[in-house]
């Protein structure tokens, strides 16, 4: 048992000296680690989740080396613990914390860091002698797999830890982790399996697709030592001069037949709470084909949520101006807390907020900073360091500070605008009050009054523990192509072996034999070709082994690994020299020379684009365009949408017909009848009463089993507003589908607008929607074909194709010292998309782009769920005489596109006055 082991004694004594006592979940994890089990640790930040796995590895090491664990300069244990983290910035801090433990315990370990910032000299040193702990990003791990002889690096390894797995799981970087784990696990057996694969190749035995048999066979009847010696001479890929001692050490033999073959390798994920924790565990364990355990830290972090209320509730809310008006209310919060983080949803708005806070409270100058993904790395590091030391009073930030190590001085967190999801809100709340028993305090500042209902929904979701899932990505052909080429530049790969390995991963478990053949064909023959007139060269086959032999191609590929990009970013530099940050290509491409925009808190005048860099000069102009970034387009989560509908349900229940009639006779804001103490509604909803009462009077507040549709005629035309509360992406797709379906009843054209709560169709003629056809219009039947006919999925896929083509290696981004020649290799993603669409429509990367559009852009599953839900619910059609509080923000958003912001403000004010 754990407590009797030497390792435990050493570690717990050390902890006791420091006055610490291990948490239950930590001890549980340690026990599982000693049992060579794998699993997922679920713990909030600030609860010692790092130590649950790290100290487990230390204890195990001490137990395995009771005599020789203490520091010896010459000790070479080989890599013991691989620590995968999504963020470069995290590596340094985690490494520091680990080193402290190692030094104080005096064990003979070194901690190494490997990521894009690691110097070549350091890499060389690591190649000669691997540190016992290596902290690495998914990309750098793949770069390690691109090194000749990489298998030996992992031969002594005991544990793979994947930190912040909840962040990785929904992304292609998560897929990179899955692939790397599958290879590492496979490599532990590869000496045997490679040989048998070679043998089976020679005797044309097809072992395709039955990996378990292969490994079972290996594990049970092969005396590995003899294999070893044979391989040293036989294998074309001899990289192993040392026998894999730990692998078949008698200590690790297990009773379970299934786990025997890789029992000494365990994998531990560390994850915050997400809705699909079991699935998250399954994805991570999948390459090892083991069930794994979940260890939960049952430490309910107390979270206190406080909404910041406007002095007066606007009954006609609109997004985008209220927040800033409330900025002065943040000053006392900032002053009272040691350090405050202010989370803003978009980088653009964070720039505005930073300026606004400085204008309101000039005293903050020097103690307030701005942190977002486009701010120069050096500046961001500076901000992070000063957060640690508590020198900053406040930091205005975006999702860029969602992750990462704890900043202990942070006492308060402010969320401005909808956090769009419960998980994100919790994560941000958790950035304050770090010690395990402290309360996390988060303030919610609405950017329009209806968002207060979201605050109520968030409170409800948190008390009911309803948290979003992160869906793992499936069948990413682009990442797989990149991975195969990666293996091809190091030691080469045997297709049967790698196919067996990747089929164990969650991402590729349904990869068909045909698709696999297509992928191999793509990397070896480049798809369709004109046989004798073709020069295609990439992966070659030699003795059954797939390799890239050209050094130039290998070098290019190495530079390519890690380009898992989210958006095409462009560097921004001063024309006089000096780097400002990065910005989306999409934004820059719309600017004209002379336009002024804001980045990193500075006003910049755009001059020109040259070689993927935007050149700017400083500007004193008062007016500037604030860039729009990806973050702003994040939709409301399905989860939060559902809770929001339930929240409105409670409002609707309170608004019995009698009560609102009473109120409507009086002047509305003064005598709201529901602000009594025995109201079951939260503070936020009580404050919103006047708005809800107006909504109910003009139209209706939908219950949770209702879908509200409003038809309103104004001088602009005939409006149809629908409120599914499903987030803007689903609304965008639904608007197009609905417009298409209505136009089949009668030819009619529409313009669309949408927000997270609902969408609008606007036409110059009456919209033929009534209770006879409305259920049919929202039918899930023929959804796919209607999507194809109505939504311009080709254009959406074209945009997705850019990323897919970059990862899949179709877009060559050039490399240093090769500029001129590389110019002949430039082709835009759009051009490639056209060429493939026309000449090779079955191409897997093209198919993937369309799939990504359906899954991510349109959230097809969610769209279908919504339609099925609507079929079960009651559709309420109302015909309000004028705009309602619910439709107003949608309407304003639709005006935003063609009006400058000041004129918009004027126009909205006029509209509000006319309506109220």
């Amino acid at each position, binding site marked *: 048992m754990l407590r009797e082991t030497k390792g435990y004694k050493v570690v717990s004594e050390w902890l006791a000296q420091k006055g610490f006592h291990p948490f239950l979940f930590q001890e549980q994890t340690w026990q599982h680690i000693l049992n060579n089990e794998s699993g997922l640790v679920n713990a909030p930040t600030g609860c010692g989740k790092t130590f649950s796995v790290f100290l487990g590895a230390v204890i195990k090491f001490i137990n395995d080396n009771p005599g020789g664990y203490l520091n010896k300069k010459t000790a070479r244990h080989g890599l013991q613990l691989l620590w995968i983290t999504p963020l470069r910035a995290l590596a340094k801090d985690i490494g520091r914390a680990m080193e402290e433990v190692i030094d104080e315990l005096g064990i003979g370990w070194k901690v190494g860091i490997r990521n894009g910032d690691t110097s070549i000299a350091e890499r060389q040193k690591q190649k000669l002698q691997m540190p016992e702990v290596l902290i690495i990003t998914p990309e750098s791990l793949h770069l390690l797999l691109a090194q000749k002889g990489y298998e030996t690096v992992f031969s002594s390894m005991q544990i793979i830890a994947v930190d912040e797995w909840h962040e990785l799981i929904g992304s292609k970087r998560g897929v990179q982790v899955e692939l790397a784990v599958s290879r590492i696990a496979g490599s532990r057996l590869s000496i045997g399996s490679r040989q048998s694969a070679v043998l089976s190749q020679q005797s044309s035995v097809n072992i395709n697709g039955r990996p378990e048999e292969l490994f079972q066979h290996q594990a049970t009847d092969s005396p590995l030592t003899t294999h070893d010696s044979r391989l040293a001479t036989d294998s074309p890929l001899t990289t192993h001069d040392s026998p894999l001692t730990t692998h078949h050490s008698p200590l690790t033999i297990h009773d379970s037949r299934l786990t025997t073959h890789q029992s000494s390798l365990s994998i531990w994920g560390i994850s915050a709470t997400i809705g699909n924790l079991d699935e998250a565990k399954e994805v991570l364990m999948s390459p090892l084909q083991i069930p794994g355990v979940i260890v939960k830290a049952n430490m309910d972090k107390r979270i206190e949520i406080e909404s910041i209320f406007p002095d007066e509730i606007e009954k006609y809310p609109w997004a985008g101006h209220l927040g800033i008006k409330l900025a002065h209310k943040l000053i006392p919060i900032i002053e009272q807390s040691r350090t405050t983080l202010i989370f803003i949803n978009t980088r653009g708005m964070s720039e505005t907020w930073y300026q606004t806070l400085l204008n309101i409270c000039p005293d903050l100058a020097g103690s307030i900073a701005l942190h977002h993904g486009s701010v120069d790395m050096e500046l961001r590091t500076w901000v992070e360091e000063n957060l640690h030391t508590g020198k900053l009073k406040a930091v205005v930030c975006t999702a860029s500070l969602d992750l990462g190590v704890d900043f202990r001085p942070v006492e308060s967190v402010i969320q401005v605008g909808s956090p769009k999801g419960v998980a994100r809100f919790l994560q941000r709340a958790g950035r304050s009050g770090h010690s395990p028993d402290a309360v996390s305090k988060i303030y919610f500042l609405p950017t329009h009054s209806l968002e207060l209902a979201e605050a109520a929904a968030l409170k409800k979701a948190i008390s009911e523990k309803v948290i979003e899932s992160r869906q793992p990505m499936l069948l990413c052909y682009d990442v797989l192509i990149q991975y195969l080429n990666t293996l091809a530049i190091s030691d080469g790969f045997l297709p049967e072996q790698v196919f067996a390995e990747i089929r164990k991963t969650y991402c590729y478990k349904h990869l068909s034999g045909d698709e696999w053949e297509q992928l191999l064909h793509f990397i070896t023959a480049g*798809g369709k070709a004109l046989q004798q*007139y073709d020069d295609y060269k990439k992966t070659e086959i030699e003795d059954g082994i797939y390799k890239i032999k050209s050094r130039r191609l290998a070098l290019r590929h190495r530079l390519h690994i890690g380009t898992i990009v989210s958006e095409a970013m462009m560097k921004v530099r001063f024309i006089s020299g000096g780097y400002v940050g990065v910005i989306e290509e999409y934004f820059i491409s719309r600017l004209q020379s002379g336009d002024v925009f804001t980045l990193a808190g500075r006003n910049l005048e755009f001059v020109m684009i040259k070689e993927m860099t935007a050149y700017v000069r400083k500007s004193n102009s008062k007016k500037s365009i604030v860039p729009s970034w990806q973050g702003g387009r994040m939709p409301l989560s399905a989860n939060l949408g559902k809770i929001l509908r339930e929240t409105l349900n409670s409002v609707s229940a309170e608004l019995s017909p009698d009560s609102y009639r009473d109120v409507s006779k009086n002047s509305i804001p003064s005598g709201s009848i529901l602000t009594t103490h025995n109201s079951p509604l939260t503070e936020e909803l009580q404050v919103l009463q006047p708005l809800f009462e107006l909504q109910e009077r003009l139209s209706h507040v939908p219950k949770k089993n209702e879908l509200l549709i409003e038809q309103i005629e104004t001088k602009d035309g005939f409006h149809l507003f629908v409120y599914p509360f499903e987030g803007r992406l689903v609304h965008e797709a639904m608007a197009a589908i609905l417009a298409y379906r209505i136009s089949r009843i009668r030819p009619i054209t529409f313009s669309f607008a949408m927000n997270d709560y609902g969408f609008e169709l606007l036409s110059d003629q009456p919209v033929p929607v009534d209770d006879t056809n409305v259920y049919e219009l929202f039918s899930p039947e023929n959804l796919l074909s209607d999507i194809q006919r109505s939504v311009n999925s080709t254009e959406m896929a074209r945009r997705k194709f850019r990323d897919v083509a970059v990862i899949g290696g179709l877009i060559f981004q050039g490399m240093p010292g090769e500029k001129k020649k590389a110019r002949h290799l430039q082709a835009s993603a759009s051009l490639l998309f056209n060429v493939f669409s026309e*000449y090779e429509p079955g191409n897997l990367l093209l198919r993937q782009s369309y799939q990504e559009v359906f899954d991510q852009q349109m959230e097809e599953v969610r769209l279908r769920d919504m339609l099925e839900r609507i079929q079960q619910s009651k559709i309420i059609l109302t015909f309000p005489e004028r705009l309602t509080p619910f439709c107003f923000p949608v309407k304003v958003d639709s005006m935003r596109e063609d009006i400058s912001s000041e004129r918009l403000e004027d126009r909205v004010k006029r509209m509000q006055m006319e309506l109220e």
Partner: protein
Amino acid sequence: MSTYLSHIIGKDHLIMSAERTLFWENESALIVADLHVGKTGHFRKAGIGVPQQVYKDDLHRLLSQILFFKAQRLIIVGDLTHSVANKEMDLFRRWRKDFPSLDVHLVKGNHDILAEKWYGEADIHVSAEQFTLNNFLFVHDIMTKGIKAGKGQYIFAGHVHPGVSIRGRGRQSLSFPCFYFTKKHCVLPAFSRFTGTYRVEAKEGENVYAIIENEVVPL
């Protein structure tokens, strides 16, 4: 709207084709720009698996156009080939042999970097910068320094791969290759379908003809 559309300059009669060629009736000459022969091959040699079919299709389209117009002469205003020699260029030479009586004239473009010998063997007349026939002057890049049309001379060029954007509903816009005629010169669309476009905007007194699917559309 049709696949072919004529444009008259003085006494000279020109026919634009949606296959991105321009036929000069008076001289029975087919004028094309930016063929970029070997471009797919160049990509493929670098391990980028672009479908070669696009190149095969380019050659086939060129063949059809020559036969359709019964052209005696082929004038290429630069960028016949894309980069250094590769096997795809051998296919072009084989293709060339099927038209022994066709007079092929190339005004060199920035991409035409093959050795002189290659052009000789392919039976292609090469002009380094410009080539004159009657009232027409052929160059690759209209912006090249030192190019000056004589009196009454009209210039034909390529190089920029001109395209026009047509705005659709919402914020969508699509871009199409086009013929771009100014008072003094004409810029031809790139012939190869494995080329992008550079947006041009017509000014007063200029004509732009977009190639949309199989039609030449005056804008």
